């Protein structure tokens, strides 16, 4: 599949998205609500057969953003799913670990530092914070100051 065919396949799901951006030929950013993130990940991984790279978590003041990065190696295109988590009190997202075991540790890390809950994660325990770190304090949230 070349870049044009990839663009065509992705444009078919545009109606399910909040935004579809393509700042460069080989850079695509698709935004959605967090509830649709799992289905989109499944689509990119199983249908498009893109390679999962990493998840980035951002505290964007009024919401959390989870950026799921995929690489489509045949054309070198990087596709990012921007999932917006609006509930700041109890942020919850469907875990993609059952689909992609490689996401286990990054989801555990995001749970540690941003306090995002991942539903159906098989092993959501502390990964990078110190053993004596207090429960319920998420160091990379904006309200936490040292």
């Amino acid at each position: 599949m070349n870049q044009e065919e990839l663009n065509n396949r992705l444009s078919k799901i545009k109606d399910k998205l909040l935004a579809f951006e393509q700042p460069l030929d080989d850079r695509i950013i698709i935004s959605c609500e967090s509830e649709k993130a799992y289905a989109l990940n499944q689509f990119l991984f199983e249908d498009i057969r893109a390679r999962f790279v990493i998840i980035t978590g951002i505290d964007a003041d009024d919401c959390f953003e989870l950026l799921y990065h995929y690489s489509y190696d045949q054309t070198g295109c990087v596709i990012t799913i921007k999932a917006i988590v609006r509930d700041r009190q109890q942020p919850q997202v469907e875990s993609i670990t059952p689909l992609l075991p490689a996401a286990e540790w990054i989801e555990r890390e995001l749970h540690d530092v941003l306090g995002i809950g991942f539903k159906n994660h098989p092993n959501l325990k502390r990964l990078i914070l110190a053993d004596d770190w207090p429960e319920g304090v998420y160091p990379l949230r904006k309200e936490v100051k040292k």
Partner: protein
Amino acid sequence: MSWKTWSLKKSPWVFHVNVGACNNCDIEIVNLLAPKFDVERFGIKLVGSPRHADALLVTGVGTRQAAIRLREVYRQTSKPCVVFLIGACPCGTGIFSKGYHVVGPVDNIIKEVDPNAIIAYVPGCPPKPEAIISGVVKALSIL
């Protein structure tokens, strides 16, 4: 000079502790032991256990998780011992001073165990191997 101090200065055996370094200072320490600088010709030898060591080479900023381990390693080191802080991070936390996981600088962590600990500072990011050798020589010469 007591025989303990004499033997420490004659051939200081060092134990390397990483308490949250980025690995750059560790590479410089490995460089010291490699043939180019070869500090073993001065009797400085890297050992695998703090119980065998006369000196600790501490690199890294001193993270919350590692501070507990560093205190335990210091307790287990045979006394008298010299603590060398290698790099800008252990000397004064450097660029990581505002990090949430930082409890350093490392000299404070060591002084919680032993207020009279002998601590030598070798700043630099990373310090040159020559600077580390110079720091070791200076620290041993005032013992």
